[in-house]
């Protein structure tokens, strides 16, 4: 379990992390989401005891990581995939890391096979692709068979097959009762992986929400209705709270009424519907809407470019 309480990190006047509190529970994968520069990596470095918080605490299993006798068994982590000396082999890199916590070389071989690097383990890691570097970083995170796994942007640079692999790996780790905390700036990467989301922007907590609740936030905004008697139906649906728009003949998009209400209204008035489709926003759209105000650098639109 990771507990972050009133965590704050100031660099001069700037608050990189601003009074952040959340708990990462065991048994599920928790996604740590936010735009670039939201303070995800800074938070993770404070959880690791690398950066000192300006105020607040970040603990792993109730204690600071540095107070754990075997840090790698308490918290396996991936910070930067490239954090390996390029002329050292993956095997030697992991061997040197393992021995700091009294971990055997047999375990090194095991995690190398686990991430699929067994055959290239003796080669210099400088020749590794980005995806292989990520796999090596994940191998390092798993060395201590840790109760908590924390990965900063592990999906970066992985091909689709690699993304699928890491999703299953992390979900398996969570099923074994471990705490799994994974950061990303892309909801599309996380939505199939995580059961819970901690969403931050400009160092502040925006949402600490289960995947189901987030999907509920995404659902039921509008309904698309298609009917040969659409004009009759529109006349019946009109109301103060209802907004009806039309893009093509015979089809309207309705906000302010649920699809059930529209269906009942049509039935009661003998109007035949060709289709009645509740439209959901994607989680990506919800995430974008939640974090929109906290994005540091917005791209210009085409019109601005042309002006």
């Amino acid at each position, binding site marked *: 379990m990771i507990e972050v309480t009133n965590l704050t990190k100031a660099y001069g006047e700037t608050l990189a992390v601003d009074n952040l509190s959340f708990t990462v529970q065991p048994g599920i994968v928790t996604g740590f989401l936010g735009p670039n520069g939201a303070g995800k990596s800074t938070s993770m470095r404070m959880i690791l005891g690398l950066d000192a918080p300006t105020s607040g605490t970040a603990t792993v299993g109730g204690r600071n990581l540095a107070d754990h006798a075997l840090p790698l068994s308490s918290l396996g982590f991936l910070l930067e995939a490239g954090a390996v000396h390029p002329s050292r082999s993956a095997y030697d890199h992991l061997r040197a890391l393992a021995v700091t916590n009294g971990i055997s070389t047999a375990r090194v071989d095991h995690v190398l096979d686990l991430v699929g690097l067994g055959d290239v383990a003796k080669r210099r890691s400088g020749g590794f692709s980005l995806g292989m570097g990520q796999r090596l970083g994940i191998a390092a995170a798993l060395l201590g068979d840790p109760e908590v796994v924390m990965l900063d942007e592990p999906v970066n640079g992985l091909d689709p097959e690699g993304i699928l692999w890491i999703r299953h790996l992390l979900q398996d780790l969570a099923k074994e*009762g471990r705490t799994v905390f994974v950061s990303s700036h892309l909801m599309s990467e996380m939505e199939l992986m995580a059961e819970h989301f901690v969403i931050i922007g400009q160092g502040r907590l925006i949402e600490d929400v289960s995947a189901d609740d987030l999907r509920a936030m995404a659902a039921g905004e509008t309904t698309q209705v298609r009917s040969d008697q659409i004009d009759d139906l529109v006349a019946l649906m009109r109301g103060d709270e209802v907004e009806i728009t039309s893009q093509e003949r015979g089809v309207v998009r309705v906000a302010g009424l649920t699809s059930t209400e529209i269906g009942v209204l049509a039935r009661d008035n003998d109007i035949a519907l060709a289709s009645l489709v509740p439209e959901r926003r994607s989680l990506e759209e919800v995430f974008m809407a939640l974090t929109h105000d906290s994005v540091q650098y917005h791209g210009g639109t085409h019109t601005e470019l042309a002006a």
Partner: protein
Amino acid sequence: MTTATLPAPTASATTRPATSSQTTAKPTALRRTGWAIRSEWIKFWTVRSTSVTLIAAGLATIAFGMIFSAVADSDAAAGPAAFLSNPVDVALGGVGLAEMIIGVVGVLVVAGEYSTGLIRTTFAAVGSRSRVIASKAVVVGASVFAIGTAAAAGAVVLGQAVYAGNEATVALSEVLDVVFGTGIYLTGIALIGIALGFILRSTAGGIGTLVGGVFIGPNLLNLLPDSITDVFLKYLPSEAGSAMMSQVSTSDQLSTGTALGVFAAWVIGLLGVAAILVQRRDA
């Protein structure tokens, strides 16, 4: 390269449930320090830029010692070799090159980890930053002391064998203090390199400060009037180092014992500054 295709990774994650991993006895601080030293040993000897360079520095010491000895002018007063007043000093002439290489190795061991970001992994895994500094110092110090002392001994023995100068040669057993003094000096320079690596966290900055501050700086200060430099120049690490290494002390040098103390104070002081800064700063 055939790195594009990877074998399919195993689907299952681990070998045992998370709850069973914490049943082993808590390791002591001493045990963990031993682990950290083993880790640094593996890291030092699995990267060519440090291990091979150190061995090369040792071999260069011997090779240059033999060359200097073989061409030693019979009339020592005739040229720059006048500084090298006896066969042992001539044979150890290569140390001037070795000390720079070894100092750079010390910087690289630390700054290399900062440049890749590995230092963060190391700090978090080891748990104590001073333990990381101490472990690097032990591994590099021991390796440099062994290779530096052996190289000095080799340079003296082989240099004597090919010596072309006038003066009578000496046996190794007569100059063991100089040989060990050289080993200690090179060890200290490597440790200064480590301290600078931690203080400056950059390869370029560390090497620049080492070369400028320790090796070239004192020579520039020599341009100042003697009345000024006589007071403090002999307390600089390089000058204290040469006092430790030379067989015959000149009047403007510290005595061997004092020189050893002054040099040790530099090394320990810089490592102490490094430890304090590393503890205070964000990693």
